[in-house]
């Protein structure tokens, strides 16, 4: 039995607050201070930023398109339907199906991770196991829309290997988390 009782608290409306803007303004302030103290180096720093910006703009456009694609085809409501459907099933095939859905669900889910916590708590309340929840969370590491950026920096072979290894280990992660939390042997 799972002893933890998550608080069903409504939160996360998709807005990130002003933290990001404060951070941006602090960096701008740093640039202004630098411009006064050492204009030459400030210009060099801005040139470095600009070349980085030019480098990633095409990838950012691609990411927006891919994120839109996933938002459209795999909305959270659909994902919930798939996972809750698997609750309480013990037969081999159904169990494997639930694992596959947890992996794919984690991969295709978009937006900040904390927005998914209330949804996952609700799933667990509905009977979805801790191992599946942890596996779902671990697979948030695999972001298909962001893969072009990873390929750009680290190459295709690296991206493929890391993605596959991460997905495999997500299952081990889920099993281990469940074993420790529930203190029971899987199966």
């Amino acid at each position, binding site marked *: 039995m799972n002893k*933890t*009782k*998550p*608080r069903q*608290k409504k*939160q996360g409306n*998709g807005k*990130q607050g002003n933290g*990001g803007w404060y*951070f*941006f303004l602090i*960096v*701008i302030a740093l*640039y202004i201070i*630098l411009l006064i103290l050492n204009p030459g*180096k400030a210009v060099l*720093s801005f*040139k*470095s*930023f*600009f070349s*980085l910006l030019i480098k*990633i703009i095409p990838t*950012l456009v691609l*990411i*927006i398109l*891919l*994120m*839109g*694609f996933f*938002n*459209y085809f795999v909305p959270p409501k659909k994902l919930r339907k798939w996972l809750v459907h698997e609750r309480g099933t013990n037969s081999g095939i159904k169990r494997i199906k639930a694992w596959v859905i947890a992996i794919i669900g984690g991969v295709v889910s*978009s*937006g900040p*991770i*904390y927005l998914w*916590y209330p949804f*996952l708590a609700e799933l667990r309340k509905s009977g979805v196991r*801790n191992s599946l*929840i*942890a596996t779902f*969370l*671990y697979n*948030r*590491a695999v972001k298909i829309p962001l893969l072009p*950026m990873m390929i750009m*920096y*680290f190459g295709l*072979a*690296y991206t493929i*290997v*890391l993605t596959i*290894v991460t997905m495999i*280990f997500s299952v*081990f*992660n889920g099993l*281990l*988390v469940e074993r*420790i*939390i529930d203190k029971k042997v899987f199966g």
Partner: protein
Amino acid sequence: MQEQRKTLRGPSQAVLKAAKSMYNMLPILGGVMLLIGLVNTWVPKTLYTSIFSKNPLLDVFTGDVLGSILAGNPITSYILGGELLTQGVSLLAITAFIVAWVTVGIVQLPAEALILGKRFAITRIIISFGFAIIIAMITVLILGII
């Protein structure tokens, strides 16, 4: 007008939603890129070698700790990781850094503990911290073989 609204629904609306969420991330992304510009100009390259030593085991641990502490969009970790790679930091350490960035998330621990339970959140984070090192080692090992 209504027909026009209807055509906006569906894929175009989903792309607009994605663009909006990307727009929300812009100050963070812009700030990080501006910081990288500063770091590239001001921080001597020798600093990286002082943070990341020549010891692969120590480096992978350092990358794991850094990735666990720092937070934000995974794109930021790719940009930082890519920059670190050009500075000569090992792929092993960078992989641990990237994996820990997205799987550990110490910053999100309070939210995760509150909603999914303290025990679940702490256990998951500790295991994910260890797994980042294992995944980095296996990935680099496979890449060395192929």
